[in-house]
Structure formats: structure tokens, C-alpha cells
């Protein structure tokens, strides 16, 4: 995530997504899945959401797109209430799920990407144009007539993302979009997400802190409470905050920190290898 593009973060007007004392309990559960959660995301912001299993991450996404209805407090998308206007909200909010196997329905990639538009009754020519554009945005040109089941996990997840983009949502909700993908598939999907940055507001739920190193901010949800709303730099440099929330540094950063090499710029294993080579060189000269 290199090109931090804040141009889309328009000031003024209603926030893209906000909540005020948002509280929700599942039937039969003794504790609230979310309790008094208050936050505000500006248009174009990229927000990560992390925290332990059961912390309330997925519940938050489901409240934002109106799949669940708050017990008290509220959540707003632009100035709309997803609980009372779910169909309007869902035209503005796209959600990408964990397992790419579950979302693909059509025999060919282009049909799958067009599926949501067909349901909205979009004109044929416009639909073609939007499908073409969405497929281009996820880097799958030439895949239009491929059958989804022949694709890799990363490709399938990009098809699912294209299906969302074709609907031109203002807000993208990502629920652990890489957790079923191998390293290659993960980086494919992350690259595409990075390119969307700024144009849309993104809420990205993940257990991989390394996916959020360039996020504008990271919300930490634990046992239903919003326990931190911090920059990614702050999160990775606070071992207590990480531990208390059952988070871990990615292996590269953990190794770098344990070796006393400042974690700041060392994102990939290859970066760390070069830093070690340099350090050996400078120590050899010093001796």
C-alpha cells in the first residue's frame, strides 16, 4: 500500500460510516457482541479492524450493511440507517467475505461480475461497460470467459471483488478477505485493494496486522468494546496493546524486533535480509 491517496477524503458533509453507542447482543448470549461502540470514518478513509475472535469485528460489519439491527445506539452509512433502509444502504456498501468459494455463482467470470448489476436492472450497454471496467480494476482482463472453478483462490477473490466494484459502492467492507489464500493470492488481492484506496471508504477486518501497515487507522475491538483507535505505527510498536488483544506482529517484524533492527521499514523478508547484510558489513568495518 504505497500510494497513500487522501484526495478522496472529502471533509465536510456526513461521515462515510459512523456509529454512536452502538450496542448489539446475539439472542441467547449473555454478553453484548458490541457495547457502546462510537466511531466516525471520513469519506475515503482506509480503516483496519482487528481483535480477538469474538471481539465483535464481523458483527460490526453486519450492522453496517443492515444484516443485523442494533439493540441500542445507532450506525449510519452516509446519513442512512442500515437497519431501516437496508436495500438503499446495500447499494452503497459492498461486502467481500472470507471464503471466495462461497460467493461465485455464474458459469463464467464476466457473468459473475455482472450478476449484481443484472439484479439492479442496469441497461445492457452500461452493464457491459461497468463489467469491463471492474474486471480491469482487478487485473483479470482476458479472464472474461474463464469458468470460476478453474481459477486460483486469489483469482476467485478478485472476481468477487470485481462483482462488488461493478456496483460502484461508496464503502467496501472486507471480512478477512485473505484468510483462505496462499501467500501469492494474498498479495494479489492486497495489491488490488491498495489501488482502490482513496476512491472508496474501506473497512478491512483481518487477523494479519501486516495488511494494515498503511491503513489510515486501526480500530481494535475486544469483547465487544472499542479498546483502541490508533495509527498502524502505534499498534505495531505497542507490545502490550498487541498482547492484550491476542494480536501478533507478522513474522518479519517480530524477527526484526528480536534482532534489534528497527521494524519501521522492514516489511518483507527480503528487506530484512538486506538489513542484516548491511549490519554485518558495518560491524565488520568497525572491527
Amino acid at each position, binding site marked *: 500500500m504505497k500510494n497513500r491517496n487522501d484526495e478522496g477524503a472529502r471533509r465536510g458533509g456526513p461521515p462515510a460510516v459512523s456509529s454512536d453507542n452502538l450496542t448489539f447482543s*446475539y*439472542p*441467547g*448470549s449473555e454478553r453484548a457482541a458490541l457495547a457502546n461502540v462510537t466511531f466516525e470514518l471520513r469519506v475515503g478513509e482506509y480503516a483496519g479492524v482487528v*481483535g*480477538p*475472535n*469474538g*471481539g465483535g469485528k*464481523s458483527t460490526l460489519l453486519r450492522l453496517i450493511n443492515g444484516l443485523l439491527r442494533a439493540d441500542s445506539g445507532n450506525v449510519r452509512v452516509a446519513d442512512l440507517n442500515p437497519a431501516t433502509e437496508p436495500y438503499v444502504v446495500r447499494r452503497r456498501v459492498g461486502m467481500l467475505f*472470507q*471464503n471466495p468459494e462461497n460467493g461465485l455463482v455464474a458459469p463464467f467470470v464476466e457473468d459473475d461480475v455482472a450478476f449484481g448489476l443484472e439484479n439492479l436492472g442496469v441497461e445492457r450497454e452500461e452493464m457491459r461497460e461497468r463489467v469491463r471496467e471492474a474486471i480491469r480494476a482487478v487485473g483479470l482482463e482476458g479472464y472474461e470467459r474463464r469458468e470460476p*472453478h478453474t481459477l*486460483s*483462490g*486469489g483469482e*476467485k477473490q478478485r472476481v468477487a471483488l470485481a462483482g462488488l466494484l461493478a456496483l460502484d459502492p461508496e464503502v467496501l467492507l472486507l471480512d*478477512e478477505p485473505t*484468510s*483462505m*489464500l*496462499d*501467500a*501469492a*493470492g494474498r498479495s494479489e488481492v492486497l495489491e488490488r485493494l491498495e489501488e482502490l484506496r482513496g476512491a472508496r471508504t474501506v473497512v478491512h477486518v483481518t*487477523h494479519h496486522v501486516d495488511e494494515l501497515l498503511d491503513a489510515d487507522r486501526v480500530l481494535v475491538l475486544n469483547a465487544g468494546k472499542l479498546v483502541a483507535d490508533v495509527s498502524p505505527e502505534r499498534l505495531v510498536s505497542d507490545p502490550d496493546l498487541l498482547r492484550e488483544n*491476542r*494480536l*501478533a506482529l*507478522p*513474522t*518479519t517484524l*517480530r*524477527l526484526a524486533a*528480536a*534482532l534489534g533492527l528497527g521494524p519501521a521499514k522492514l516489511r*518483507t*523478508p*527480503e528487506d*530484512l*535480509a*538486506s538489513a*542484516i*547484510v548491511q*549490519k*554485518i558489513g558495518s*560491524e*565488520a568495518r568497525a*572491527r
Partner: protein
Amino acid sequence: MRVELQNVRYVYAPGTPFEVEALQGVSLAVEPDEVLGIVGGTGSGKSTLAQHLNLLLEPTSGRVIVDGVDARTLKGSELRRRVGLVFQFPEAALFAPTVEEDVAFAPRRLGLDEEEVQRRVRETLELLGARHLAGRSPFALSGGEKRRVAIAGVLAMAPEVLVLDEPTAGLDPATREDLLGVVRALREGGTPVVLVSHDLDEVAEVADRVCVLEEGKVRAVGTPEEVFYAHPEASLAPTTVRVVAPLREGHPEVGRPVRFEETLSALNGLLEGRG
């Protein structure tokens, strides 16, 4: 227990336009006292392979041998008790009104007396750190909690080998660590574990041997050190190996560490100028 696949081929949808040969002559053994990691990209055949270990899928050709006996001659229910298979997203199969009853379901069906059933429920929930959930409805649990309950349900059958298909996908890092602890504990207790995973870092931490599948064939099998250092490219090696491999040309004394702790100590040694 030892389970062996001998030249197993498996064809999905044979005779249709969708025919796919998912396994193309795989021979591989799960040894009695090991954690065997199975890695490979999506579509490489990992899950198909896992489902052959208890004949949930029957080979199109080739054989599965369990402790020297052709698995096809064993009773299906017996085989599935001895080879415990935890699917991807096993929480989808939770069904009982409480966690306790869900975990008790399979051992009760084995005809064990109630005291033994309860003992197994307690022990497996304890092992997975889910004892406090016993009286809850499985449907009111979080994703990670459900996952642990579903795994407990398989362990309650006291399988002689445990097969886990992507068990940590979607778990928070601390829960993942706990689950890897369970894998180690089972192995210490004499139960071999097959861990199918796309996360090479976790395979690096717990596997005694690694099998790399590619397009339905075994591309490599051996110790993590042998396998990962033979293919240190990004998509085939864990983070530790990707850090160390480029250093080896100039500094062969760093060795071939794989696990996090041994990598840290090798790199510290290198930085301090002792080889």
C-alpha cells in the same frame, strides 16, 4: 498409527466435461509419531488428499493402507473413528443446542458409557480452551470459538490420527498459537497429526515433515529444512527461510534454520560474528 497412500489417483466428475484429475498418483505415508504438513497452492489437491485418509473420498485408483491393512476392508464407521478428519470451516456442521451436547454426539454414538462420554467432553473442551463454553449454544459463539468446539467434537472420538484441513484460517493469532500447541501435545501423546495449511509460517513451526503438492502431484517431501531450502522462493518458503536463504551465499555458517527460535539464534550468531 501409520496411514499410507499408494499411488492414489482421484478424478472428480469422471466422464463429464468437468472432469478433473485432482490427484495424479500420490504416494505418501503419515508416520506414527509425526506432524506432517501438507502445503501447496489452491487447487493443488490438498483437501482432496486429506479426504482420502479416511476414505471419505475413495481413490479412482491406488490404495490407502492403515496399519498395513487395505482401508477398504475396514468398516467405514471404524475407519472414520480412527482417522479423525476436521474439514475446512468445520463449524458449519455444529447442530446441537449446547456445546456440550455437540461434542458428546459422536462419542455417544460409539456406544461408550455416559461417564466416559462426559469425561471425553470435559477433556477435549479443556484441551481446546473451550471448557467455559460448555453450556452455551454453539450458534451464539464467535467464529474462533465455534472452530474450537468443532475440533473438540472430532477429538472426543479419540482418533488415532488427526487430519486438520486449514484449521487456523480466520483464527486470531493467539488462538492459532493455542491450536498449534494442541497439535504439538497430540503428537507428544503419540497421535500423529496431518496439518493441511496454506500458511507456511505455521507449518514451519510445527511440522516434522512437509509435503508440497502441485497440480495433484507430490512435488517435494522431506524435513522442513530440506523442502523449504530447496525452494526458497516466496510462494514456497516460510518467512524465516526467505530471510535466511539470501544470506547463505555470503554466510553459509548461518545454517538452515526453519523455526522462529532457531532462526533468531542463528541470525544473532551471525550478527555477533560467531558462526
